[in-house]
């Protein structure tokens, strides 16, 4: 029977990234994916003829350019086109537009508050301080602070050194930042309701917390720390939908000699004598490998595809209590034409960017209240985009595709989810958009409505949590997924983790996959094929 050097369970973008770097080092690598298609939450599928949806993730910023370059993804078909601007529509018929042109943006902020226009200078600089600090850790393995191994001590010293490169006052601010709620943080800068609401949206996306919950300020940073071509904080569309990211990595992986098998669901990781030996598929087929890497979230890895008897009790306890609450829904809509938004002046560039319809912190908090009570938000926060204004490959000419990310949508509703309840959730979202776009409803040809239940069923993300585990301080850096397991090594020998459940966390970033590859290659004594951080300075 053939024995692979490595098996990666799951063809999510991190599994594929991990596999590609292993293959680049000359290893014989097999990726096993339960679905008939690859990508996990980084996927584009045609569910309505002629339209391609970015079914889960829909915009790209976090993906590390170092990985892009090292795997030659441009030549494998990836293009990330920067998207422009964002808008929050107000209930009174006005709007706030964060234009891509800085002078226009400034004047628009001043239209809502002259003071806020100036405060945004301070805000941008402060956020950049934290971005700069955190960006340097994305392509590094977190140190184990309790370990006295030379490497951990050195890495921890590096971490402290970066931290202390901040000035005294920055250190105080940084610690506050990590523990504050986004609402309180932003209120130290801005006074306008719509501007507060606009800038806080990124802090609740994918998170089972509200704008007034401590810890949400960090989530904003998680959405601001990426870059496109050096523009930190900017986002873009992958041409052809987010699936292009996974497809390009897979293409690079195959060019390096790698093998992907779809419709191959792993039942269990085979462990003998505290050492991973391979996997068994749900079909009963056994495949052996020197190394087994899991691209599944921490819960599914330890409670799903591993035998409890192979695991330490403490780890099982951690896995059971891993915070991975689902809180998001998604609509993907095929449109017969371009919806109009009468609040915007004719020809406004603002439809090119993110569109939101929640104009106060209070409405955002109320949307969270619904989720806490196991209801979908009656007045949800949505992040709406129409990528087909740029991308000619996702809909027929003149037609459009709309991607609507919805916060909040609960994992369970009273009496359990049914198809009718799912559609009612979708209708609530559509109604909200239709309030600002009179022709929107008539244009709808098809809509894919996804609650956490559908997301989990399809991608295997436990509870549909988009980040594979919440991004709170207790689950970040050397605490991700659990203290003592943050260096991508599993509890048994030759078993590794490479998913978003590991540092630096969720989002289409590739960093967990690359970081895990570095550790695996190190253990195998192979050349490190993973890229070094370009560095900001």
């Amino acid at each position: 029977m053939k024995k692979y050097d490595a098996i990666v369970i799951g063809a999510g973008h991190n599994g594929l990234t991990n596999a590609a770097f292993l293959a680049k080092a000359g290893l014989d690598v097999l990726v096993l994916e339960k679905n008939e298609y690859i990508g996990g939450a980084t996927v584009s599928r045609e569910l309505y003829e002629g339209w391609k949806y970015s079914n889960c993730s829909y915009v790209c910023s976090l993906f590390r350019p170092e990985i892009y370059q090292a795997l030659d993804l441009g030549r494998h078909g990836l293009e990330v086109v920067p998207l422009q601007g964002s808008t929050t529509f107000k209930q009174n018929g006005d709007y706030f537009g964060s234009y891509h042109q800085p002078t226009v943006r400034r004047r628009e902020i001043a239209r809502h508050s002259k003071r806020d226009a100036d405060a945004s200078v301070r805000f941008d600089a402060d956020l950049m301080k934290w971005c700069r600090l955190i960006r340097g850790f994305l392509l590094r393995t977190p140190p184990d602070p309790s370990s006295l191994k030379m490497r951990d001590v050195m890495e921890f010293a590096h971490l402290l050194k970066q931290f202390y490169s901040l000035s005294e006052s920055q250190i105080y601010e940084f610690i506050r930042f990590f523990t504050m709620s986004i609402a309180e943080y932003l209120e130290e800068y801005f006074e306008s309701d719509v501007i507060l609401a606009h800038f806080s949206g990124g802090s609740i996306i994918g998170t089972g917390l509200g704008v007034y919950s401590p810890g949400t300020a960090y989530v904003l940073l998680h959405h601001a720390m990426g870059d496109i071509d050096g523009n930190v904080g900017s986002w873009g569309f992958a041409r052809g939908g987010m699936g292009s990211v996974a497809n390009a990595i897979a293409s690079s992986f195959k060019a390096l000699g790698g093998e992907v098998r779809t419709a191959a669901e792993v039942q269990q990781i085979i462990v003998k004598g505290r050492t991973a030996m391979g996997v068994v598929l749900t079909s009963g087929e056994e495949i052996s490998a020197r190394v087994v890497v899991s691209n599944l979230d921490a819960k599914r890895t330890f409670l799903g595809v591993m035998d409890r008897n192979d695991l330490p009790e403490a780890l099982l306890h951690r896995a059971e209590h891993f915070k991975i609450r689902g809180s998001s829904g998604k609509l993907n809509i095929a449109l017969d034409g371009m919806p109009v938004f009468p609040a915007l002046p004719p020809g406004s560039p603002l439809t090119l960017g993110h569109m939101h319809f929640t104009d106060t912190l209070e409405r955002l908090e109320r949307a969270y209240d619904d989720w806490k009570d196991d209801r979908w938000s009656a007045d949800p926060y949505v992040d709406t985009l129409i990528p087909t204004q740029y991308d000619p490959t996702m809909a027929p000419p003149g037609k459009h595709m709309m991607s609507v990310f919805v916060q909040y949508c609960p994992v369970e509703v009273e009496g359990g989810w049914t198809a009718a309840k799912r559609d009612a959730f979708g209708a609530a979202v559509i109604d909200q958009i239709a309030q600002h776009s009179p022709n929107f409803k008539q244009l709808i040809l098809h809509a894919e409505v996804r609650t956490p239940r559908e997301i989990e069923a399809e991608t295997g993300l436990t509870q549909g949590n988009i980040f594979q585990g919440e991004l709170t301080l207790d689950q970040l850096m050397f605490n991700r997924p659990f203290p003592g397991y943050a260096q991508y090594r599993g509890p048994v020998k030759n078993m590794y983790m490479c998913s978003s459940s590991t540092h630096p966390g969720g989002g289409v970033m590739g960093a967990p996959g690359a970081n895990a590859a570095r550790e695996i290659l190190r253990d195998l004594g192979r050349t490190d094929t993973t890229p070094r951080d370009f560095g900001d300075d």
Partner: protein
Amino acid sequence: MASQQQLAGHDFHEVLKASPFHARVEEQSLVKNWMSWNGYQTARVYDTLASEYFAIRSSCSVMDLTPMEKYRISGPDALTFLNRLVVRDISALKPHRVTYVAWCNDEGKVLDDGTIFHLEPGTYRLCSQHHQLDWLLISSLGMNVLIEEETHEVAALAVQGPTACSVLTAAGFDTLSQLKPFGITHTLLNGFEVMISRTGYTGDLGYELWVAPANALALWDAVFGVKQRGLYDVRCIGLGALEMVRIEAGFIMPGDDFNTAETTVRAGHDRSPFEIGLGWLVDFDKPHFTGKQALLKEHGQPIKRRLLKLAVEGNKAPADSFLYDGKRGRRIGTIKSHTWSPILKATLAMADIEYRNGVVPAQIWAEIYYQKELEWRATWARCTISKAPFWAHPRRSATPPQRC
């Protein structure tokens, strides 16, 4: 529903805003070389840099100053507020007088520099390079003071050069000859109000004229009318020529010569007044001002670095040059801004230099890369520190101004 006025408030087509002088500026600009200054469409050059430079130094230049940030500060605590804001003691600033100031954050790092105009008893205007409303409001907590941004509500022209007084007198302003440097006078021109201050950023004789935007074009036409009548030459100048003369005059530019504190991301990349040559403004005898504690502490220690005025040997532009403590020596700094001075026939620069143990380097050398017909060359140039402004002409302050 929002009011129509509120909804009509924004035009996304207008990336750069037109100043109230724009109709004339546009007409005068031959090369259409535009840039953004605080979001306004501003001419970098109108015709040629040389002709604009010499308008300032040899005849009369006009520049649209509207984009400069302006704040009106009034109310019972206006003076207390301002004197606590800035490092200089301005308690003795009389009505109708102007003074140069800088202000810091609590760490004693410079946020910006600018000028305070004492417009009328108890009412002030603060002019600055960068946006300051947020900081001014933060600093005014608990004080009875009204702070209003009025950048767009006040149009301003700088009229500078040896014939500036003569030109303005010919244009109909007859009260100027007795106006001293940093003085303010109010006058009427064809029935509208004009405030004139004897201030500027050129180091030459010059005035700044302040009017309501509605009167901007009439003011412009009055000044250029002097040229039309064949009396004096008057020329528009862009920011390019201004950059040359401000370096000659030794004026610093926040954001170019040093990083302003509010926009600084990397620790240690901001600067104290002492480090940018503004130590002379700092008045420790004042009861309190923002940054005082930090500056007192810094003052007792050897200075780490300074922004210096350097005359660079030769005629090669030291753009982005590194500076060394000897030819091929240790790297001690970088050039921040530089110009060729047509009047001094010298290369002048502002440079950020490290001081070892608080001591000024004995020698400073610039490594200059320059290009001839697309071929790059390197050379070394010795730099000489200039304590005084490179260019300081008595006509800048003579009252009454010489007639010429």
